[in-house]
């Protein structure tokens, strides 16, 4: 025993010398999985998505039909666009509770501009997008200049935007048929085989591609990650962190407004009474996609998968005959598991 211990000790010393400045290796299976997930955080959510699709297809054969999968994609499109903006904010270690409010308020503004104000569709759309961007910029201003915590800022603006939303809309729904066709264009679809792909979904996928590029291939993207990772270190490295944060909240606002536009197409109307659960759904999608709420870690690819997981679960549970009230329970449980997993992956040791 004593001998073995001695041997172990001397071996440990030898390893330490050899790996003086190299990275030590772990051999336990759990640690290896932890390392792989740490290096490729999208793998976990992807596995969940694939397993969920297979499971729901077994439960109900109708699930894996082209028509139903098209429906799932159309259902998640708005949430996915909101979650894209939310991802940017969460990557900087922030949170945006006003995502849904900005989206719905922007859609109402667009509808009001082109009906009551009589603007042409293009102008109403551009104004709506501009207002959404301004709402995001207000969040960014409060976070970077007044230096309030993002949670508080967006809790405040969430309430304000929903209130303004009711005032401007008179709590009335604007029908899609009363609006120029551009407003509901995102709801139109093109058939691809048995699939029906809406323009909104195509646009959403393009946006994900754009932000995948911006985050991974541009200096701005690196700065977003560095700011969320360790804001003080980023500042000392010469990054203007306030500018990065402001740009993130502002761009997120624009994305929410785009989400609002797609929402009009999806519902074929602009309604002030939808979207209360969009905030949490967007955060859920981000978290399920493996983006860390502590900032600096994650990807838009993960968020897309996360949004699809939410959509697949809701749709699959529905087809499986699970009552609506229990769907929320299942999604909530999924979130808790995802966050626990994130904590575990974060504790990676070399």
């Amino acid at each position, binding site marked *: 025993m004593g001998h073995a211990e001695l041997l172990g000790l001397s071996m440990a010393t030898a390893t*330490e010398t050899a790996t*003086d*400045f*190299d*990275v030590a290796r772990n051999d336990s299976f759990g640690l290896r999985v932890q390392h792989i997930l*740490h*290096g490729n955080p999208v793998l976990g959510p992807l596995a969940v998505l694939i397993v969920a699709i297979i499971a729901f297809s077994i439960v109900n054969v109708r699930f894996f039909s082209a028509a139903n999968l098209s429906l799932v994609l159309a259902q998640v499109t708005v949430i996915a666009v909101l979650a894209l903006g939310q991802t940017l904010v969460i990557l900087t270690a922030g949170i945006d509770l006003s995502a849904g409010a900005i989206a719905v308020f922007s859609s109402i503004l667009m509808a009001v501009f082109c009906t009551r104000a009589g603007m042409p569709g293009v102008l109403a759309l551009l104004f709506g997008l501009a207002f959404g961007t301004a709402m995001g910029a207000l969040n960014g201003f409060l976070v970077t200049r007044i230096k309030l915590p993002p949670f508080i800022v967006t809790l405040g603006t969430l309430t304000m935007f929903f209130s303004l939303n009711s005032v401007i809309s008179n709590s009335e729904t604007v029908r899609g048929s009363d609006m120029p066709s551009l407003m509901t264009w995102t709801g139109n679809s093109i058939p691809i085989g048995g699939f029906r792909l809406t323009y909104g979904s195509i646009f959403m996928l393009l946006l994900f591609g754009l932000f995948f*590029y911006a985050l991974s*291939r*541009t*200096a*701005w993207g*690196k*700065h977003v*990650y*560095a700011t969320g*990772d*360790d804001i*003080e*270190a*980023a500042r*000392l*490295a*010469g*990054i203007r962190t306030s500018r990065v944060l402001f740009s993130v909240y502002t761009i997120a606002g624009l994305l929410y407004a785009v989400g609002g536009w797609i929402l009009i197409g999806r519902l074929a109307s602009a309604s002030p009474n939808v979207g209360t659960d969009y905030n949490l759904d967007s955060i859920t999608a981000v978290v399920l996609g493996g983006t860390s709420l502590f900032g*600096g*870690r994650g990807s838009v690819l993960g968020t897309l998968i996360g949004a699809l997981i939410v959509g697949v679960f809701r749709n699959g549970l529905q087809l499986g005959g699970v009552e609506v009230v229990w769907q929320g329970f299942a999604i909530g449980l999924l979130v808790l598991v995802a966050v626990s997993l994130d904590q575990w992956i974060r504790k*990676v040791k*070399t």
Partner: protein
Amino acid sequence: MTTPVLEARGLTKRYGRVVAINGSDLELYPGEILAVIGDNGAGKSSLIKALSGALVPDEGEIYLDGERVTFRNPMQAREAGIETVYQTLAVAPGLDIADNLFLGREQRKPGPLGSIFRMLDRGHMRAEARRHMSELGIGTLQNIGQAVESLSGGQRQAVAVARSAAFGSKVVILDEPTAALGVKEGNRVLQLIRDVRDRGLPVILISHNMPHVFEVADRIHIQRLGRRATVITPKSHSMSDAVAIMTGAAEPPPTAKA
């Protein structure tokens, strides 16, 4: 006599009634490692922050290569060629080694890819990062695309030092670079500091670790009560002399010239 690369004259910084630095001087000569030691509250960090632009002094002048300079923020000091590695390790743990080396100084691809699409030249940055790392004898890091958080404390320090050496054209300031490290890694970083000096960059080293200071420093600036008490060399004085001067137990000897 050679002109100092970096010179501070009568730097003063007050916070209300508290005087952090009280007319402090400092000279850093070409090709030397100048250690700055002092008891807690002697004004070491304030002095260093003034030199690296993190703090704007109320009074006093700073000269770089004999030219008067004023720094309003760390970026200005950096643009003037003074690189600082802070004690809090200014690295982004989630980004890889190459990204960290170029953090805040990313290089874009030439042509429209870079100017319009703002695409980063990753291949070039990685090759450059690898070159900088191996120039300092830290080529053993097998993967330049490895996240910094997967590195040990010494390796992270090496990345931070490599960054300052790669971009610092005049002066490298290191704040407690060995504080959080084990014996072996500490020694490795000391060697790195010597390598930086031998490549022609003078180094200011702030440290509490007397053996480390006496091992690498060419001259030792002792800060006491907000000003420079004296400058000694490891040859002229012992560690206990230094501690005695630092704490006021002994009279400071006249300042040693480079």
